């Protein structure tokens, strides 16, 4: 006689009528809607957006943005090259080279980038006067590029070093046993593999770099932040115009946000792709 199979009636378990999740969710959407309705919309309505309907305003901001992108892109290229050399220096077996490179890297990473940029701007011309040469009186954009590259190359060096160290030791051994020289090994075996792993970190650093170009605006560089500052200062000087300080800062922040957030999404996507 077969044992009777116990039959269990399916029980539909219902949660409580108002679970914590639903409660939090509802509160969340109410708070979000309240902020939108009570803060964002009135701010948008009461703001003086008239200057932003003029093409000349956007042309002026575009000039600043071009400078920002120019300085950012040149600096990232320069600091990648210098950073790669510094990483090789730090990994090298020549004691003095690795000591110098790691000293430079640790020093630069421990200093505020604002300090570095600031003293490049005021230090270079002063050094020029001491050395009786005119060569050090550069355009502001080149000062900004030097200052940003001094800092970013140290960070890039750490990224490169971590990337090179993350490559399996067997790859080096295989390359050596095929008769490749150390330089060839690094350039044609290790670097192509390391670059894939490093790309997200490099893109992240590019975001930091683009944000940091705004530091140079404090001193002399005519880039996006400074363009915005001049814009609202100009409008506060025109009779019969409402101040557009917050509106301008919001527009500028939004431009930075679009660029940096796009780069952040790219970095995230690369990370998913390569890991």
């Amino acid at each position, binding site marked *: 006689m077969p044992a009777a199979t116990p039959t269990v009636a399916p029980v539909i378990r219902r949660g409580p009528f108002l679970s914590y999740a639903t409660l939090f969710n509802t509160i969340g959407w109410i708070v979000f809607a309240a902020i939108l309705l009570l803060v964002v919309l009135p701010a948008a309505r009461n703001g003086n957006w008239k200057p932003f309907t003029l093409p000349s305003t956007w042309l002026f901001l575009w000039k600043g943005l071009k400078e920002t992108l120019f300085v950012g892109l040149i600096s990232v290229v320069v600091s990648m090259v210098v950073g790669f050399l510094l990483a090789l220096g730090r990994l090298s077996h020549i004691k003095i080279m690795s000591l110098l490179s790691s000293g430079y890297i640790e020093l630069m990473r421990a*200093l505020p980038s604002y300090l570095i940029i600031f003293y490049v701007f005021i230090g270079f011309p002063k050094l020029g006067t001491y050395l009786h040469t005119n060569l050090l009186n550069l355009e502001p954009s080149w000062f900004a590029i030097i200052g940003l590259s001094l800092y970013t190359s140290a960070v890039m060096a750490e990224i490169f070093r971590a990337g090179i160290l993350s490559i399996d030791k067997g790859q080096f051994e295989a390359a050596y046993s095929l008769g490749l020289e150390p330089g060839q090994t690094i350039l044609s075996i290790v670097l192509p593999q390391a670059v894939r792993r490093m790309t997200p970190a490099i893109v992240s650093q590019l975001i930091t770099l683009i944000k940091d170009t705004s530091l140079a605006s404090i001193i002399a560089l005519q880039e996006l932040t400074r363009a915005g500052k001049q814009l609202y200062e100009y409008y506060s000087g025109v009779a019969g115009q409402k101040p557009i*300080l917050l509106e301008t800062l919001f527009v500028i922040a939004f431009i930075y946000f679009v660029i940096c957030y796009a780069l952040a999404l790219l970095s995230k996507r690369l990370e998913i792709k390569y890991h």
Partner: protein
Amino acid sequence: MTIAAAFGLLAETGSYFGGAIIDNIGLFVQGMLMTVNISFWAMLVSFVVGLIVAVLRVTPSGGLSLLAATYTEFFRNTPLVVQVMAFYFGLPVLGVHLSFSLFGIYVGDAYAAGTLALALYTGAYTAETIRAGLLAVPKGQREASYSLALSTLQTLRLIIIPQAIRMVLPPLANVYSAMLKNSAILAYIGVADLMFQADYVNNRTFRTFEVLTAVVVFYLMLTLPLAWFSHWLDAKFNPLRSRTLRLRGARD
């Protein structure tokens, strides 16, 4: 001529190298204390903000997590300079003045606005770091906790957060070290921190390279111990994962 000029660089205008620093050492120390002061308060505020935002962002609540995500992404992807400008120049336009006095201590507009901007900027990074930690706690921990009949809040408070904090402390130390460096930007709105005092001494004495040397040394005195502390935490809490974390923590 060039050699003489190089000597001139070492002993700018007159007295021995370092004279300008020794004469104004009080200002540098004041500046350093101000930098520490700003960093302390900004750290406190940004940790609280970051913890709340991180928890909100991992909750299943759509609205709150959207709000938290908007805050983090907006503050992380815009420059600190613009934020400081918005808080310092922008809030008075709206009629908001952040200066206050508490127990007879007057807190100025620049200090309050600057510290708040710095705290909110760092709060976004703190939130991201803590969120990464919360998500890194294995799912089984949560399930085990629920099966032991702990409530959602108890699970978060007793199981998830203690583990997450251990994982998160070393990268968090990096975030705060970056914040200390970022605090130099407040010199722009006139907060008398190290950077500001150095510029003041430079403008008074015109001995740029002495001032530069001094300000570099003073900043190293603040940031290097923090970096060592971060390495120590890393080695203590995550002996195996330390290298990968350092790779990830490259951004800021």
